[in-house]
């Protein structure tokens, strides 16, 4: 009973070959069949574990080359894992290579039938469903023309329509939910959700956090073939966006986060804490506390903290040097604090990151993003990042003696007791 995808400890190794590896029988014979074995291996995926329940959509996020497509292909049975285990229960359908089996010279209908067979339907089922497929693809009047007369969009629509009409119990989608125009996209997403509601286990690769937020029940973030986060979409998107910062910095491995020594590391940030946590209102004071662990003495390190808006705009960058704080640190643990007396930020999401630099900014010793964003509670609509206490006054100008009229007060935020 029940379908689903269970992946345990999955690892996939790729081999790279020397560039002068013989490609033909002739070359190989001339070189005495040498140089045919792999030059070296690398792990495209390692220690990947997760599961997708029936009726659940898992979103997979990650940069290019993080191993997303490799993961999806392995689950689709393309290639064999070198480590770990994939368990699939149910018939698999996939939107990996859309229009894979299409032939230019055959008509849409001929291609439809063959593709449905390739997708795992019997001839009878394919014939019974072709009307529905054509209708979904909105190709009623073109279906008997050769595919070569189709636009790219039409071909993709047909391919997509075939793939989701093959009754999969497990569905793999590789960034194809952006096929066709907006209307068709909405239809595709609705259809994928409908499949989910029928108990289909779905995995979806996406580059758009917005889509993952809207569609997925859970999300997985891959970084260089490892699982960097596996949780509810919001948390994972936070991690993903933090990593998307344009000046992405090298980071120490997770083990250093937990305070374990790492080869070559002097000092690591072990935590970033905010005071107060949620709810945070515009104008509240904020304390950012960094904890660190030091393994080797570091002379005059610089601690830096940056607050940036979810759009990527930097709101504040400050460092311990500005306060003339330049202690030398001996092995051990410690904490350092930045107190902001008030933070006049507009409502929205802000990301906080911290770094430790060596003296004179020579190198970055460690860097960390706070995974959860700082959410500043909504303020009355004002464009921009800042929302300081503001007061509009109208200086009336009239013929005659000047007089001041303190009239309109537009400070909506509870004014903190600063003065």
């Amino acid at each position, binding site marked *: 009973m029940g379908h689903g995808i269970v992946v345990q400890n999955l690892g996939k190794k790729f081999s790279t070959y020397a560039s002068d590896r013989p490609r033909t029988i002739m070359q190989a014979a001339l070189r005495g069949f040498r140089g045919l074995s792999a030059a070296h291996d690398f792990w495209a995926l390692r220690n990947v574990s997760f599961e997708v329940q029936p009726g659940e959509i898992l979103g997979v996020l990650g940069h290019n080359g993080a191993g997303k497509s490799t993961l999806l292909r392995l689950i689709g049975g393309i290639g064999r894992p070198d480590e770990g285990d994939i368990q699939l229960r149910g018939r698999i359908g996939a939107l990996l290579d859309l229009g894979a089996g299409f032939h230019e010279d055959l008509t849409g209908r001929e291609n439809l*039938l063959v593709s449905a067979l*390739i997708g795992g339907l019997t001839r009878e089922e394919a014939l019974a469903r072709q009307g529905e497929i054509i209708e979904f693809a909105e190709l009623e009047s073109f279906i008997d023309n050769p595919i070569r007369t189709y636009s790219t969009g039409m071909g993709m629509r047909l391919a997509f329509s075939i793939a989701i009409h093959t009754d999969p119990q497990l569905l793999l989608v590789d960034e194809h939910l952006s096929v066709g125009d907006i209307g068709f996209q909405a239809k595709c997403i609705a259809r994928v959700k409908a499949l989910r509601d029928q108990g289909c286990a779905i995995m979806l690769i996406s580059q758009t956090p917005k889509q993952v937020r809207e569609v997925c029940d859970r999300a997985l973030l891959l970084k260089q073939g490892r699982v960097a986060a596996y949780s509810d979409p919001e948390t994972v998107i936070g991690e993903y966006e933090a990593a998307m910062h344009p000046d992405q910095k090298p980071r120490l491995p997770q083990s250093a986060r937990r305070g374990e020594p790492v080869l070559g590391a002097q000092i690591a940030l072990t935590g970033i804490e905010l005071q107060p946590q949620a709810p945070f209102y515009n104008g509240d004071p904020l304390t950012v506390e960094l904890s660190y662990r030091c393994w080797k003495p570091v002379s005059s390190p610089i601690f830096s903290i940056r607050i940036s808006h979810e759009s990527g705009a930097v709101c504040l960058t400050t460092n311990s040097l500005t306060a003339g704080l330049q202690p030398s640190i001996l092995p051990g643990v410690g904490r350092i604090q930045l107190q902001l007396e008030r933070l006049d930020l507009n409502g929205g999401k802000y990301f906080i990151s911290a770094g430790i630099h060596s003296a004179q900014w020579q190198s970055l010793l460690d860097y960390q993003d706070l995974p959860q964003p700082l959410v500043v509670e909504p303020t009355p609509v004002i464009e921009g990042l800042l929302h300081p206490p503001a007061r509009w006054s109208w200086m009336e100008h009239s013929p005659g003696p000047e007089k001041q009229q303190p009239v309109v007060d537009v400070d909506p935020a509870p004014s903190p007791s600063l003065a």
Partner: protein
Amino acid sequence: MVSRQHSLATTLNQTLLSRHWVQRRDLLTGLVSRNIKLLYNRSVLGIAWMLINPLMQLMVYAFVFGVLLPNNAVPNFTSFIFSGLLVWTWFQSALTEATGAIVQNRALIRQPGFPVSILPVVNVATGLIHFVLSLPILLLFLWKDGVQLQWGLLLLPLLMLLQFAFTVSLAYVLAAINVTFRDTQHTLGVLLQMLFYFSAVFYQVPGQFAAIFNFNPIYLLIQGYRAILLPVDPAVPVADFNWLPLVGLSGITLAMLPLGHRIFQQQSERFVEEL
């Protein structure tokens, strides 16, 4: 209740199993008919092209060996050559196409759940369709040559099955080699050209060489077909025909088929992983 559940599970299993095979069969026929459509779709003569090639070859050989060098002629010359040509054409075209089966179908191989090992079978089956559709022409030649068909004709499907399985097993291996060495298809062309001349398509093997020719599986197959179709040929009366080498070939094919299948699977997996 328990037993009922059990029987329910068995029936479910059976239906799944049979659905599985129905699906495979439908996929095979679907791909074969697409192949044939693609070959003749845009030509005026359509499927007639399929016959033109062997008929032209037949004309050439009939002219060279029937008119220019008549002393080598064998009885029922037209039927003799045409039967050999049909068998050879099926073997050669299927093998050449199937050698590219992995390399030329990347998109299909990357389709989850697609049974990759069906691809060479599709090529050989396409050749089989051509072969079967040409048989009436052969019968026409046999009738013209005044050959009386015998009970041995019933063996024809068996021989076709053997040729089918043998070609598929060979195609598995060649398609797998083609993944590592992309010039296999060209190399194969040259080798097949040589093999053609050693397959006795348009001549009869002199007695002293027969033992050597027995190592050529295609020669064996062609001789088998002729033993069935041209039984009046005094050289090989059907009852006296030595079937032993063909039985041996069947044994070799049975052993080669699973082996080739495995190599093919491995190489197709390797192929899709190469980026």
